[in-house]
């Protein structure tokens, strides 16, 4: 006898929220670029009964980018959702889960992230700086100068750039470039790095130490660079998802697809 069709779930039902929480944690755990995303809205949920105590669930989720980089150990619950005025980034995700004997597991997920439209931001906040392309010349110059400035002043490990997370440019009343980027400690001290003979390598996974930097560069009316880098300390890497395999510069572009 076919299993009775389950009663349709509402998007705000506790069971839907529990499934969405599993889905969002899965998406963040399996992403290696950009920022952590938080649930903003459950757009739709469909339940297909396979057999007793075995359902397949299709979720459509609206997520919002938080201020925590994906490598940050900060629990998602403590990550602030980026405000509208900071030029928010939204994620649209379709997730397929299985609920077997009351336990959810993700079978597949596909997400597309995109920044809010500039018109929307400027309509509410005409003076707010907008997201800039991550390979914008001023952005790259600011990131390079900020990392170099940090490495020249630190007594700790020499840091290498992993990826630029986001950048915004304000044009008035002063010209300011704001950047955020992920870094990793190398096996050199800053002093050793100055000695070009030594090739500084990222630390192996069992000693990896990632961090995050924010910087602002005022270019007019005067030059002023401010940099703040924080290392997270060693974290045990997630076994089944390779961390950054090489230190090259990876641009996490808004408007990217992940599956």
């Amino acid at each position, binding site marked *: 006898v076919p299993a009775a069709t389950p009663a349709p779930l509402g*998007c705000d039902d506790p069971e839907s929220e529990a499934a969405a929480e599993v889905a969002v944690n899965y998406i963040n755990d399996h992403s290696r670029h950009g920022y952590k995303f938080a649930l903003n809205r459950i757009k739709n949920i469909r339940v297909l009964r396979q057999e007793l105590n075995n359902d397949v669930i299709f979720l459509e989720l609206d997520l919002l980018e938080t201020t925590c980089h994906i490598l940050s150990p900060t629990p998602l619950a403590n990550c602030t959702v980026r405000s509208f005025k900071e030029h928010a980034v939204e994620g649209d995700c379709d997730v397929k889960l299985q609920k077997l004997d009351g336990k959810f597991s993700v079978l597949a997920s596909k997400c597309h992230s995109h920044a809010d439209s500039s018109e929307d931001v400027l309509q509410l906040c005409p003076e707010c700086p907008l997201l800039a392309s991550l390979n914008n010349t001023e952005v790259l110059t600011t990131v390079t100068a900020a990392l170099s400035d940090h490495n020249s002043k630190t007594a700790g490990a020499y840091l290498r750039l992993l990826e630029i997370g986001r950048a915004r440019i304000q044009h008035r009343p002063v010209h300011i470039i704001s950047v955020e980027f992920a870094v990793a400690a190398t096996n050199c001290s800053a002093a050793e790095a100055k000695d070009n003979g030594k090739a500084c390598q990222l630390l192996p996974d069992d000693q990896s130490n990632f961090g995050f930097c924010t910087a602002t560069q005022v270019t007019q009316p005067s030059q002023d660079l401010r940099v703040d880098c924080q290392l997270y300390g060693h974290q045990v890497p997630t076994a089944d998802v390779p961390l950054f395999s090489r230190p090259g510069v990876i641009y996490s572009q808004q408007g990217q697809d992940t599956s």
Partner: protein
Amino acid sequence: TVAKRAVAEVAQHDKVPRPVGFVPPAPPCPGKIRHFKI
């Protein structure tokens, strides 16, 4: 000439009487917005 007829108000007595305190069920989806809508 073709004139668009206003839809006649449904006569009060046509409406299905609702029990006192009736709260229409919340639309199942989409769910609530937790932060803000882009």
